[in-house]
């Protein structure tokens, strides 16, 4: 290192920096897909679904199982799983509504309920699949595209594009359709919605179903990006809620910006300080946001 000319060293660190930023943007796009569901449930419905990462990991394992046994592409699997996850989400919301929301006990018992769900999913996956890391096989895992000094690993690029597609679809659905607008409305004025002859519970059930359905896709993307074991989900709790809060509750564009920002900062941290520090970044983001701007970047 010592013999290397100053100019060359500068170039290398510039390459490193640039690649870290690009990798961070790709990662951030993926984070946007992971957070989209929570942005709906927590941001719009005010349901603190901390079990969301559990559903994501469940999605990962389903993609893994089908991929290994039948050789189906993980993203295709996740699209097939969408209706099933939607139904699962609708069911979970129904239980949540009947047991907690209707009785006004969502703050303590509702949270404990979701915590229990997260825990049960994780332990069940451990019992079925063990604690080994699992991964999927697909043609785009491995090769990279090269543009000058920038490396674009397809393993990151494909999930990022899929994630952005998912994100755009949700944004369009919420802003353009009647049901989507009703979802936005239900977080603001339930009574007004009832006066429009819309059943708010039904709208919430649909919204929560969509939120869980996104977990199927996010899970498949996760297992493309990295090998997965059951407790990986816990790392995502901090990330997902940090992005959601930083972006501003219920704001989809805010969520996207926050996700990209967190991806870049995490990637820079991992490149220059070591990957073991990356999980701490999200928490720092969360605390700083809560301390200085609790409404988030684009909060109402």
């Amino acid at each position, binding site marked *: 290192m010592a013999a290397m000319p100053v100019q060359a060293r500068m170039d290398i660190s510039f390459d490193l920096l640039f690649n870290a930023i690009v990798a961070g943007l790709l990662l951030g796009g993926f984070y946007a897909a992971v957070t989209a569901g929570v942005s709906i449930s927590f941001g719009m419905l005010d349901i603190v679904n*901390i079990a969301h990462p559990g559903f994501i990991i469940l999605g990962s394992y389903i993609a893994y199982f089908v991929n290994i046994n039948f050789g189906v592409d993980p993203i295709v699997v996740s699209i097939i799983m969408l209706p099933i996850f939607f139904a699962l989400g609708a069911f979970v919301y129904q239980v949540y509504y009947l047991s907690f929301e209707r009785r006004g006990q969502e703050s303590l018992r509702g*949270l404990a309920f979701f915590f*229990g769900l997260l*825990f049960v999913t994780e332990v069940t996956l451990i*019992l079925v699949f063990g604690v080994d890391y699992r991964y999927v096989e697909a043609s785009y895992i491995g090769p990279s595209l090269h543009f000058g000094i920038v490396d674009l690993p397809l393993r990151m690029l494909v999930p990022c594009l899929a994630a952005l597609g998912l994100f755009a679809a949700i944004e369009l659905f919420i802003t353009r359709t009647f049901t989507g607008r009703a979802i936005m409305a239900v977080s603001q004025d339930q009574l007004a919605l009832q006066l429009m002859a819309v059943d708010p519970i039904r709208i919430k059930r649909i919204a929560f179903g969509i939120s869980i359905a996104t977990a199927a896709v996010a899970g498949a993307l996760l297992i493309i990006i990295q090998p997965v074991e059951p407790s990986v989900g816990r790392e995502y709790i901090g990330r997902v809620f940090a992005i959601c*809060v930083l972006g501003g509750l219920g704001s989809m564009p805010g969520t996207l910006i926050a996700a990209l920002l967190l991806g870049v900062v995490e990637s820079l941290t991992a490149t220059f300080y070591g990957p*073991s*520090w990356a999980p701490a970044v999200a928490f720092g983001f969360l605390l700083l946001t*809560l301390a200085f701007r609790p409404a988030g970047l684009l909060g109402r």
Partner: protein
Amino acid sequence: MKAMSTAKFSLTAVATGALVMAFAHWFHVDYLFFASYTILQFIVLATAWNILGGYCGYVNFGSAAFFALGAYSSVALIKFDAEIDAWFPEGAANVLHHIFPLPIPVLILFGALVSGVVGFGMGYLTLRLRGSFFAIATLAMAVVLQTLIVNWDFVGGSRGAYIIRPDNLEFAGIEINYIEYLFALMLLLAVIALATARVIERSQLGFGFATIRDDELAAEACGVPTLRLKLIATTLSGAFMGMAGAPFPYYIGYLQPASAFGLEYAVNSIAMPMIGGTTSWVGPLVGAILLGSAQQYATVTISSAVNLLIVGLMLVAFVIIAPNGLIGLVQERLRRKQS
């Protein structure tokens, strides 16, 4: 039910524990000490969780983090003792050797201080906002503290740290078996925690907590200093969890981040009060004894993963079906009998 004075209550609790201890000592069953130490530890954790969760209605998912903070502050002090000669000039080292190694009660106080301060800080940052932010922040905190500990080589990092437990302890000329000593300390902590919870319940502080749980906005409007009360609760709750963790390195002998931050602490300290009943100090006690002994049994006979699954399923079932826990079920039964 007639009300007992706090002194009488504590004496009864100590006497019950002493009875267990004498029993185990008489039969020379070390396993009984190990098993009941774990249960006592869960009594402290569950009671501590309930001070914030049951009385104020704020959920703390980071019990494992507070527990681990206590354990790792002990490890740090023990490791510090080993480095004294290398770090300090001879004079200062000699003085320090008189103080170190610190006795476990001092470690417990130190653990309480560290966890209490962290609890206060977390509360200060998040409790001014909507209730759920605190819960989310505690969840995230557990992950981050684990990251910090894994990267901190001084306390062993991800490799873990060995703590040598002396076989016996000389105390006023009497030799005491070390595991019995740890058991006695944890028994004392459990009594202190229960007595504190009981005192809070009957005091103005407890009524203040209850107003927060029932309707924070109304309480605030009536002039209840809600933020201050919530901070008292988080600090107390965190401090007790730290206390429960401080003797843990000596108990386990080899501490690694994965065991100190174990999921079983986070889930049990929520499940135990929820299953027992959150409104009074009896709930966490009952929950901890029932779930704690069941798990001790299940870990030996089935497997530890299955027993955690059972705890998780029970937690979900209880919050849905019996929101007031076992205590609530019993009270309901009594009320029905009377009418």
